[in-house]
């Protein structure tokens, strides 16, 4: 087992940096501190995200243990980690929305969820017993980035509030997503 854990692997980190001097250097420090070997940096300076961040892709080599420490170090430094290795969208969340789903434009609701960037809708099941003009319900299955469950749920609450929909959240306390 220790043999496997000591294997050096290549990982891709996708970060989003605040557009301020020194941010790139700051984002590389946790990688160096925790023993990652930097392979390449792709700094998309001209390609600002809708939220005003600059996407950066960093390829590194590290052991799985060290890689975990690097991701933790980046989060602790307040660096936005969008993708870490193969962990993107590793958490599955189910929610139920109810209300005037059709009238409030269901496809726009889905687009808004996708726009939150840390979740994607993987399945939807709609129940409209009284036809499209009345109250209907939908179960949505979301794939969320690792560790972003609370952010995703908070975004869902905002969307539900804005459209006057009832949201039934999954129980997530105590790490049970």
């Amino acid at each position, binding site marked *: 087992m220790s043999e496997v854990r000591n294997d050096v692997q290549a990982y891709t980190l996708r970060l989003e940096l605040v557009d301020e001097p020194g941010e790139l250097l700051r984002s590389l420090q946790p990688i160096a501190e925790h023993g990652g070997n930097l392979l390449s940096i792709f700094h998309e300076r001209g390609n600002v995200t809708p939220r005003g961040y600059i996407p950066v892709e960093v390829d590194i080599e590290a052991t799985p243990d060290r890689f975990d420490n690097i991701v933790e170090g980046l989060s602790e430094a307040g660096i936005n980690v969008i993708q870490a290795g193969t962990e993107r969208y590793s958490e599955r969340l189910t*929610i*139920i929305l109810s209300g005037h789903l059709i009238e409030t434009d269901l496809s726009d609701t889905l687009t808004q969820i996708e726009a939150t960037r840390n979740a994607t809708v993987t399945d939807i099941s709609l129940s409209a017993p009284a036809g499209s003009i009345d109250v*209907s*319900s*939908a179960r949505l*299955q979301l794939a969320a980035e690792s560790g972003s469950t609370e952010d995703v749920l908070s975004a869902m609450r905002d969307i539900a509030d804005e459209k006057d929909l009832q949201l*039934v*959240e*999954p129980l997530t306390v105590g790490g049970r997503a």
Partner: protein
Amino acid sequence: MRLCVLGAGAVGSAVVELAAEHGHVVTAFADSESAVVDADGIDADAVLSKKREEGVVGDADPESVFDADYDVLVEATPTTLGDAEPGFSHVERALADDRDVVLANKGPVAERYADVRALEAESEGTVRFGATVGGALPILSTIEDVGPSRVSAVYGVLNGTANFVLSRMAAEGLDYEHVLAEAQDLGVAEADPTFDVDGTDTALKGVIVANVLSEGETEYTLDDAEVEGIQELSGSMLDLAAEDGQTIRLIVEVADGAVRVGPRLVPENGAVAPSGTENAVQIEADYCGRLGITGQGAGGPETASAVLTDVERLAD
């Protein structure tokens, strides 16, 4: 121990009925209008049938119970919000006389926890309130045994009426109104089930747990809880949940200094999806992981047994 029982509802009456079996004597018993006091112990059967037939427990003034000889005041009057009166004043008077207090009434520890603790600090008496959360289920005593500072989260179902309604909706595909009416016919739901279905009752219990966990650092009241009820849920929402192996339950979450109550998606046969009127709580603690407590919580005899367990603990 000599008990002074205030409140002659289901819980207070059951305490009077069961006290002797537990080796205690009830020396005073009062409802809001009347009282009976006897230093040698009241005649439980006679007093309870008087209450059933005439609507009073005796001929004495309710005020007179505070002058009776008693060791423990059992406060089982209805839970009230805000100033938690008259329950709070009853606690205050007993503590001022250096007597112990056992609460079945949630109001004083949900709405005025710091005040109760301050009065207790000034008194020789001790306040226990295990019956206020989950009735007979040993939820607060488990937290006490594990140590509040080692508990990171407490969550689950703490209202039997709401759980009954949701489990029936899920099993039968029926709508909320229909099932609630059925629950009222069966006597599971009260004539006015507002606090059960709008989440208030569950939130009060969550607030009490939060107060215990915070160990005096922060005081919680109902206003600090985020509360959503089950009134807007439809049968089709439960059907959608079932398609995915899940169901919806009214869940309280006490974690990270916050109390949240609302309908949540939970695994259909999971630890916090009990059936019928049962309660089910998970306590997450350092070192011992997740502790689950499930069972018939509320009800007169169940809650009375929790009250008498607290009395036993005071006697030790």
